[in-house]
C-alpha cells in the first residue's frame, strides 16, 4: 500500500459526510428546484436512497477485493492491461472532478464575495492549503476532518434554527402535483452530483482499520450528508420558493442572506459560507488524493510526494480551462454529468463484479 496511514471507522464516516455535502450544498438546490419545483426535497430524498444503493454496491466490491484499491480491483478482475486502462480513466474522472470542485469555489468567490480578485489567485491559495493538508497522507487529513466537522454542524444548525421566521409553508404546495416525472428528473440531477462520486471511497476503504465494519460507517456518512442536502433543498423551497431557488446561482447563500433576527442578528451569509469552504476543502482534498494515489499505483512509484507539485500545477490550469463560462457549467451539470458519471459510478464497478465472478469460475 502506498499510503502507510490508517484511519478509523469514525473518521471514515466524517469524511463521507463532508464529501457528500461538499460542493453540492452550494449548487444542488438550484438544479433540484429547476427540475422538481416544489418537490425538490422529495427528489433529494429519493436521490439519497438511490445513492445509498450505490454505496451498497461499493461495499460489496470492497468485501470481494479486500485490501485492494480501485486500481487493484480493476487489475484483479479485468487483467493487467484492461484493468490498467480503466484505472487511467478513473484517474481522469477524479482529476476532472477536482478541477470542477476547485472552479466551483472560484466561481462562487468571484461572483459573490471578491469580484475584482483574479480567479487564479483564489484557486492557487485554496489549492495550496489542500495540498498542504493532503501531502502527508490520509491519516492526518482525516484527523483534520474530525476537528472541522463540528464547525460545519454548528453553522448548519444555526442556519436551520434561525430561518423558520422566513418560512412560507404554502411554497411547498402542491406536493407531487405534477406526478412523479419531474421529481425523477430532479433525482437524476442530484444523483449525478454527489452520489455517483462516492465511488471515490473505494480508494479510501482499504486504509480503514476495522475493514469488516467499514460498510456501515460509509453508509452512515453518506446518509447524514444526504439528509443535510435534503434539508438545504427543503429550506430553499420554504424560504425562497421554487421560482427564486431556480433563478439563483447559489441558493443557499441567498438563504443565509435572509436570516434576520430582531434587526441585529443579520448579514451572516459569509459566516454561513464557512460551511462550504470546509466541505469543499475536504471534497477537493479527497479528489486530489484519489488522483495522486491512482497515478502512484499505476506508475508503480514508491512514494507519491513528487506527484503533488506537477499534479497541482496541472489542476490549476485545468480548473481555469475546464469550462469557458458559467452557462456551460450549468448545461454540463444538468444534461451531461449524469451520463458522463454513470460508467464510473455503476458501469465499471459492475464490470469488476462480473470479472470477479468469471475469474472465480475459471480458477
Amino acid at each position, binding site marked *: 500500500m502506498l499510503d502507510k496511514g490508517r484511519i478509523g471507522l469514525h473518521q471514515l464516516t466524517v469524511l463521507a459526510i463532508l464529501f457528500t455535502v461538499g460542493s453540492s450544498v452550494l449548487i444542488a438546490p438550484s438544479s433540484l428546484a429547476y427540475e422538481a419545483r416544489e418537490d425538490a426535497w422529495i427528489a433529494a430524498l429519493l436521490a439519497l436512497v438511490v445513492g445509498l444503493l450505490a454505496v451498497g454496491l461499493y461495499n460489496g466490491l470492497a468485501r470481494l477485493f479486500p485490501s485492494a484499491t480501485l486500481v487493484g480491483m480493476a487489475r484483479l478482475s479485468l487483467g493487467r492491461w484492461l484493468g490498467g486502462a480503466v484505472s487511467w480513466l478513473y484517474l481522469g474522472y477524479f482529476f476532472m472532478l477536482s478541477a470542477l470542485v476547485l472552479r466551483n469555489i472560484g466561481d462562487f468567490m468571484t*461572483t459573490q464575495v471578491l469580484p*475584482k480578485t483574479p480567479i487564479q489567485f483564489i484557486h492557487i491559495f485554496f489549492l495550496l492549503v489542500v495540498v498542504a493538508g493532503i501531502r502527508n497522507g490520509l491519516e492526518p487529513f482525516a484527523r483534520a476532518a474530525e476537528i472541522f466537522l463540528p464547525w460545519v454542524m454548528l453553522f448548519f444548525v444555526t442556519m436551520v434554527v434561525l430561518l423558520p421566521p422566513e418560512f412560507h409553508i404554502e411554497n411547498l404546495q402542491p406536493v407531487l402535483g405534477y406526478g412523479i416525472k419531474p421529481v425523477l428528473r430532479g433525482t437524476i440531477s442530484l444523483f449525478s452530483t454527489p452520489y455517483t462520486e462516492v465511488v471515490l471511497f473505494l480508494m479510501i476503504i482499504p486504509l480503514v482499520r476495522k475493514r469488516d465494519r467499514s460498510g456501515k460507517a460509509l453508509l452512515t456518512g453518506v446518509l447524514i450528508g444526504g439528509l443535510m442536502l435534503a434539508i438545504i433543498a427543503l429550506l430553499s423551497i420554504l424560504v425562497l420558493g421554487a421560482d*427564486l431557488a431556480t*433563478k439563483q446561482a447559489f441558493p443557499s447563500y441567498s438563504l443565509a*442572506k435572509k436570516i434576520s433576527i430582531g434587526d441585529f442578528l443579520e448579514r451572516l451569509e459569509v459566516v454561513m459560507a464557512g460551511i462550504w469552504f470546509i466541505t469543499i476543502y475536504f471534497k477537493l482534498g479527497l479528489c486530489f488524493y484519489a488522483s495522486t494515489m491512482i497515478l502512484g499505483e499505476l506508475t508503480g512509484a514508491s512514494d507519491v510526494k513528487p506527484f503533488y507539485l506537477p499534479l497541482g500545477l496541472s489542476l490549476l490550469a485545468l480548473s481555469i480551462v475546464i469550462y469557458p463560462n458559467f452557462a456551460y457549467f450549468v448545461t454540463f451539470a444538468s444534461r451531461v454529468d449524469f451520463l458522463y458519471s454513470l460508467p464510473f459510478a455503476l458501469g465499471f464497478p459492475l464490470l469488476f463484479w462480473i470479472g470477479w465472478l468469471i475469474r472465480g469460475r475459471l480458477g
Partner: protein
Amino acid sequence: MQRKRQALILLCLCVLGLAPGCWDSRELNELAITVGLGLDKSGDNVKVTTQIVNPGEVASKQGNQGNRMPFTTISSTEQTVIEALRKQTIILPRAVFTSHLRILVIGEELARDGILKVMDGLSRNREMRSDFYIIVARDAEAEDILATLTPMERISAYKMFKTLEMSAEEWAPTVDVEMDQLLHDLANPLKDTVLAGMVIEGNKEVGSEAHNLDRSKPFTSLVFSGLALFRDDKLVDWLNSQESKGYNYIMNNVDTTAGHLACPDGDGFIAMEVTHAKSSINGSVDQEGEPFIDLSFQLEENVGEAQCEMDLSDTASLERLERVATRQLEEIVRQTIAKAQRNKADIFGFGERIEDAAPREWLRLKDDWRERFAKLKVNIEVDLKVRRIGTTINPLSDRKE
C-alpha cells in the same frame, strides 16, 4: 546555507503575496453609502437617482451644524441601470455602494412602461441585498421623492422604510414588498403584484431645500397613498385606501388597524379597532371544471370610538355592530376583488391557490387564466366578533339623566 536559502524563498513568497495589493479592498471613505435608489423613465433610457448619506453630517453628535444636508441625491441617465450607477462617479468622488439600500422608488411613468427590464440588473447585482422595500412614486418622479427632506429621520430613505414598516403594522392600507417577493411575483407570468404608492404633498422644489424643515410643519412632505396595481410588470391602476385595506385583509397582511361604521341609528360613526385578523384563501375546481375561491376571514374587533347614542352595555347592540361590520368587510373585499378583476390582474395569487389544490386542472386553466380570473367566482365567509368596548361603557353622547 540551506536554512538561509529556505528563509530567503519564504521571504520572497511573502513579498509576492503582498505586492499585488488587495484586489477587493474597499475603504469606507471610498464608498458612497446609498440608502435610496430611484428609477425613472427618461426617453428610451432610464434615469437612476441615488440618495447618498453625507458621512460627516450623520455621524456628528451635535446634530445639524451649519446648513449642510444629511444626504445628497445624484441622477444619471443611461441605457441600463448598471451603467448609470457607474456613471455617477463622474459626479461623485466615491463609488456607489448599494448594500445598505433601504428603499427603491420607481417613477410612475416607468412603472406604467414596465419594470421587468430594470429589475434584472438589480437582481443580478452582487452588492444588492433583498431586504429593502420597493415603492412607486405616484404622479411624481422617483428623483423628486428622493430629493425631499423629511423631519424626524434626517435620511429620508430611512424615514420611508420605517414609515412603511410602521404603517403596514398599524394602519392596513400599505404593503411592504421586499425585493425577493417582487421578483417572485414577476417570475410568475400569471401572478400580478401591488406596490405601495407615495405622493409628494406640497411643492416639490421647496421639498429639497433646507428651509423645508425650517418650520415645525414642513412645507413639503412624503405621504404613502394607495397601492399601485401591476398587471405583469406594468402599472395599470391604483387601489384607493379602502381597496388597499381590502387587499391586505385578503392577503392576511393585517395586523391591527382601525375602521369606521355608520351608526346603526342616528348620525355619527363608530370606530372599530381590529385587534386580530386572519384570512385564508382556498382554491378549488367544481364538477363542471370551473375554478372558484373560498375566502374566509376571522376578525376580532374592539369599539374604539362611539360618536352616537347607543347602549354598548347591551349584547344585542354589539351583535348589531357585528352584523354591520361583517357587511362592510364583505363590501370592501368585493370592491377590491372587482377592481382587480376589471384589470384582469391576479394580485391575490388566486391562480396559485387553484394550482395548489388541482395542479392537473390548472394545466388546462392557465392558458386563459386572465379571462377566467376576471369572471372568477369568489365565496366570502366572515366570522367577526366584537369583544371589548374600551375603558368606558356607554358613549359620552349618551347623556340620559
